[in-house]
C-alpha cells in the first residue's frame, strides 16, 4: 500500500485511497476495541457468577500495580499454601477479580457449558440452513 501512495500521477486517487484506508483502519481498531470489551465483559460476568470477588484499582498505586500484570487472563498465585486466581483488567473495569480454586473450577464449568451452548446453537443454525436448501428452492 505504501508503494501505491508514492507513485506519481496517481496522487488524487491514492490520497482518497489513503483516507479510506485511514477510516478503515480506525473502524477496524474500533471493532477490535469493541470485541476486546465484549470479551472482557463476558469473562467478567462469568467470574462474578462463579463467585470471584471484584476489587477496584481506586488509587494510582493500585492502578499502576494492576497495569503491570498480564491483562485479561487468569493468573495463578500461591500464597502461602493456597492457590489464588486473579483476572486483572486495567482497561475496562480498572479492577481485578480474585477467586480461590473452588471458584476457578466453577468458572471453568460455566465456560465449558457456555462453549457447549454456542456449539449447540451453531449446530441448530447449520441444520436450519441445510433444511432451507433442501426445502422451498426445489431442484437446481
Amino acid at each position, binding site marked *: 500500500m505504501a508503494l501505491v501512495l508514492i507513485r506519481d500521477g496517481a496522487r488524487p486517487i491514492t490520497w482518497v485511497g489513503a483516507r479510506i484506508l485511514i477510516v478503515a483502519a480506525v473502524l477496524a481498531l474500533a471493532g477490535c476495541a469493541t470485541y476486546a470489551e465484549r470479551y472482557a465483559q463476558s469473562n467478567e460476568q462469568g467470574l462474578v457468577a462463579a463467585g470471584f470477588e471484584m476489587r477496584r484499582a481506586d488509587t494510582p498505586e493500585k492502578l499502576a500495580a494492576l497495569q503491570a500484570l498480564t491483562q485479561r487472563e487468569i493468573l495463578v498465585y500461591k500464597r502461602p499454601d493456597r492457590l489464588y486466581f486473579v483476572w486483572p483488567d486495567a482497561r475496562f473495569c480498572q479492577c481485578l477479580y480474585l477467586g480461590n480454586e473452588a471458584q*476457578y473450577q466453577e468458572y471453568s*464449568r460455566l465456560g*465449558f457449558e457456555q462453549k457447549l451452548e454456542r456449539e449447540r446453537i*451453531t*449446530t*441448530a443454525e*447449520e*441444520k436450519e440452513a*441445510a433444511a432451507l436448501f433442501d426445502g422451498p428452492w426445489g431442484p437446481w
Partner: protein
Amino acid sequence: MAIALGGCATIRRHETQDTEQVLSAAGFQMQLGDTPEKLASLRVLPTRRLVPQARDGRLYYVYADPEVCRCLFVGAEPQYQEYQRLALRKRIADEELMAAQNILSASTMNWGLWGPWPWF
C-alpha cells in the same frame, strides 16, 4: 515454516487450554510447578495425558503440563469420572456440529453438474 510452526504451537496451546478447562470444571486440583524440582518432575510424567497414579493405597489421576500452565492437575476417581462425562458431552457436541456442517455442504452442492452416478 516458522509461521506453520507458530500456528501449530497456537493450536496446541488452545487445545491444552480447552482440556485444562474441562479438568478444572471436573474438579481436578491444580498444583503449580513453581520450583525447579517440581518443574523437572513435571517433565518426567507423560505430557498432557491423564494417567493413573497409585499413592498411599489410593488411585489418583494426574495430568502434567510443563509448557502452558506449568502445572499438574490431580484428581481422584469421582473427578476422573466427571472429566470423562464432560469430555463425552463435548465429543458428542463436536460430532453433531460436524454432521450438520457436512449436511449443509452436501445440500448446497450442485450434484447435477456431475451427471448420473453409475452405481445408482
